């Protein structure tokens, strides 16, 4: 029993941070309808500032706190509201999700650009020192844990009072229903929204500096886990109730530590289950709290004031353009592939091969998100399933990777189909969260298993016989990419693609003509997972050995964001994304290694424009320049007469 209490008290401090973060989430959700996936990144930003100020510039601790929590945190919240979220308050949930995802991926890399990527050991304490100990409920807790508990209680109580007894609290609740209605009633909706974001930024800052010293080093990944735990807590409060949210946070924190305490030390179970616990709670809540799932998107009664969203630019079928296109394709593509070889020799060929392999994995996003509009955050984990399948087949049964690609695709498709069964009941933001849960489970739990990921040493995936040369493997990759691209195009043109297009337009209307939404989505999920699996097996073979670290969940997020940037509706979009993901880091590494960490920020930028250009900013620019060329051609034709 005393052991239980020790674990529980230990978990209490985690629980308090989770509660704190969850209130921040609920706050912005209630005023702007945004499920702020960037919250963890905001917390990381403040923690990084605090670390740099106190640890590296040797500021006074209180000055550092003032800067990180009172200045940077709220300022970040203010900026996010002003620049982004204010403008998409009435946008569909998916748009908000993608914008927040871009920030989740982008903010840490911007922070690392300013504060360096080096290891940051022993983050400084916030209030009381973690080297002094206090007695609490009969157990020993350190000063930092005490700080966490005291701060969390103070903030939650203050916030509760604020929302209940001030007029701006009431206004906050009105704004989420319809900002315009509120404005017609003479309230400045923008000001209310900004207040919420500033407050939430302050809370993020607090959570950041408080959570940092509970880890041995400052790592951005820990803050993503904070976000997940906070989401579970917020879900427990049905995204509305602050007391329930508080309770949910505490339950997740305590549950996680008690569970970890009783599991055998250092086993895969203990290591994997502790970080996955918040996710399991979240998925459980999503699946079994029907009220949460059926929450409708807020529909602004005055939304019709806006002009309808512009249709995606139609592709240009001008025959002259097609001719130019063919010539550029014939000359340009080989030029991109081969000319740099003069400078970089075979390194470039390897970069190109990697680009083609990434393109294949990214095609799975084109298939899923481009066709069905669903956001999955586990595509790279599914690639991992394909890679490990191919690897185990090669190691145990000496099967060639060519078989590995096929069987890996089939296994990944089966896993994807299995995930999609519960996930299909969710849809939208909740599907994204559930797939993120799978990605994290795979990351922490499935892939470290010896019979999957081969343990510490990983699994070997030799190149197939006859394709061991660099050129041969390059062409093999191109062929696999072409086949997968062909599948995507055929599915899009065919019945399944038509059904999915109808479902994207209106799910209810599609059902009233006899289309089964569940079946169409199930199909596309399996196809997409299969493509990811094939790409993963190919990836494994191109790097010849894979281990569980290579398929971490963050890459799934980054891939999603990247493809949304280049264009999720077209096969070229995926190819552009894949090549960019191989080439840009390579070039930055060669010429501007300082900027290397900004790669993700660069990609994340694109997703911030998703609200305006759902076809992808690169695709949008391409179409715009194609239109300009057409106009120029027209002028030239008119000129002589």
């Amino acid at each position, binding site marked *: 029993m005393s052991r239980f209490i020790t674990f529980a008290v230990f978990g209490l401090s985690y629980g308090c941070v989770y509660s704190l973060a969850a209130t921040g989430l609920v706050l912005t959700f209630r005023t702007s309808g945004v499920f702020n996936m960037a919250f963890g990144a905001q917390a990381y930003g403040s923690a990084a500032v605090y670390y740099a100020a106190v640890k590296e510039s040797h500021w006074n601790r209180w000055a550092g706190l003032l800067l990180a929590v009172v200045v940077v945190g709220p300022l970040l919240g203010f900026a996010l509201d002003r620049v982004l979220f204010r403008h998409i308050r009435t946008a569909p949930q998916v748009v908000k999700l993608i914008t927040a995802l871009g920030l989740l991926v982008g903010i840490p890399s911007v922070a690392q650009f300013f504060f360096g990527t080096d290891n940051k050991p022993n983050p400084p304490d916030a209030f009381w020192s973690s080297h002094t100990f206090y007695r609490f409920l009969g157990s020993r807790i350190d000063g930092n844990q005490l700080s966490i508990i005291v701060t969390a209680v103070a903030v939650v109580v203050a916030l509760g009072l604020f929302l209940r007894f001030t007029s701006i609290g009431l206004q906050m609740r009105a704004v989420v229903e319809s900002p315009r209605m509120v404005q017609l009633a003479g309230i400045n909706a923008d000001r209310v929204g900004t207040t919420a974001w500033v407050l939430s930024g302050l809370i993020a800052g607090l959570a950041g500096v408080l959570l940092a010293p509970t880890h041995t080093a400052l790592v951005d990944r820990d803050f993503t886990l904070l976000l997940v735990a906070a989401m579970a807590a917020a879900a427990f409060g049905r995204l509305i109730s602050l007391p329930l949210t508080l309770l949910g946070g505490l339950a997740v924190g305590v549950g996680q530590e008690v569970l970890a305490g009783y599991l055998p030390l250092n086993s895969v179970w203990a290591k994997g289950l502790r970080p996955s616990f918040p996710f399991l709670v979240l998925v459980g809540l999503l699946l079994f709290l029907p009220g949460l799932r059926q929450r409708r998107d807020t529909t602004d009664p005055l939304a019709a004031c806006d002009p309808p969203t512009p*249709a995606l630019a139609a592709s240009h079928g001008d025959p002259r353009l097609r001719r130019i296109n063919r010539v550029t394709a014939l000359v340009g593509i080989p030029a991109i592939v081969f000319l740099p070889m003069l400078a970089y020799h075979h390194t470039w060929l390897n970069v190109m091969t990697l680009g083609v392999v990434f393109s294949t994995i990214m095609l799975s996003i084109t298939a899923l998100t481009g066709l069905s509009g669903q956001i999955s955050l586990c595509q790279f984990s599914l690639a991992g399933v394909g890679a490990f399948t191919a690897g185990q087949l090669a190691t145990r049964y000496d099967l060639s990777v060519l078989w590995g690609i096929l069987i890996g695709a089939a296994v990944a498709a089966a896993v994807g189909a299995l995930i999609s069964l519960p996930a299909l009941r969710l849809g939208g933001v909740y599907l994204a969260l559930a797939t993120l849960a799978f990605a994290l489970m795979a990351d922490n739990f499935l892939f470290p298993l010896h019979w999957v990921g081969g343990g510490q040493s990983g699994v070997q995936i030799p190149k197939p016989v006859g394709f061991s040369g660099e050129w041969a493997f390059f062409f093999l990759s191109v062929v696999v990419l072409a086949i997968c691209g062909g599948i995507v195009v055929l599915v899009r*043109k065919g*019945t399944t693609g038509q059904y999915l297009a109808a479902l994207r337009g209106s799910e*209810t209307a599609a*059902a*009233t*003509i006899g289309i089964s939404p569940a079946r169409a989505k199930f199909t596309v999920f399996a196809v997409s997972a299969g493509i990811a699996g094939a790409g993963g097996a190919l990836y494994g073979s191109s790097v010849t050995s894979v281990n569980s670290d290579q398929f971490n969940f963050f890459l799934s997020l980054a891939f999603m964001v990247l493809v949304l940037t280049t264009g999720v509706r077209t096969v070229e979009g995926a190819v552009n994304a894949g090549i960019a993901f191989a080439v840009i880091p390579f070039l930055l590494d060669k010429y501007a290694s300082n900027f290397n960490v900004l790669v993700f920020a660069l990609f994340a930028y694109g997703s911030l424009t998703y609200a305006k250009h759902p076809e992808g900013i690169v695709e949008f620019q391409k179409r715009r320049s194609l239109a300009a060329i057409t106009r120029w051609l027209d002028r030239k034709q008119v000129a002589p007469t």
Partner: protein
Amino acid sequence: MALLEATGISKRFGGIEALSELSLFVDAGDAVGLVGPNGAGKTTLFNCLLGLLRPDTGRVIFDGRDLGGMPIHRRARFGIGRTFQRMELFTEMTGREHLLVAERARRRDGALWKDLLNRGGPSADEIGRVDATLDLLGITDVADLPVEALSMGHGRLVELGRALMTEPKLLLLDEPSSGLDRTESLALSGVLARVQDERTTAILLVEHDLDMVLRSVSRLYVLDFGVLIADGPTAQVMADAGVRRAYLGQAV
């Protein structure tokens, strides 16, 4: 036996009884109107018939089958089509594509392997049937525009066409004339008459525009606060004093 027979349908939302013990029937090929003031429960009843909502009590029998608990898309396959009060069109598709996808859904031969062998394109037969329906509705000349570019009237016709492609035995029309001007709504009545002539589809029409109702239906149900207050042949119901009071607000 009636094509559609709903008996004892009740539905509560919190403390409000939106429908109480409501029963109605529609015979094959019949045209029936359902009228009532705003908030009378018309759309709720539609949603219960269609499976968007599950009624608290009561049974819906369609074509001899009990529809209880059946998902929307399966009801559609048995022959219930509908249009929506707030238009639900597939954005990014043209009118013709709306009809084509509905035709494909009716045939239900959309296996994935056919897509992969590039057999997914529309067949000559499908194109022919779509053309015939476009012609019937008189929207051939706007069929290749994206639906965002269509007028409200044309949009409603595309919705109607999409529903017709599934060859419904019963068509539920939810305020098809709302947002239409007088010419457009006259044209819609004409199209409905033609549809009934050529395809012998039964129609259950919810409508505020009484002229349109009188033009289109032969039998009428009047709903007020979730209760049926009158039913019978149109002329007889319209003469009923209670109906005039509840619905038209007229002193008698």
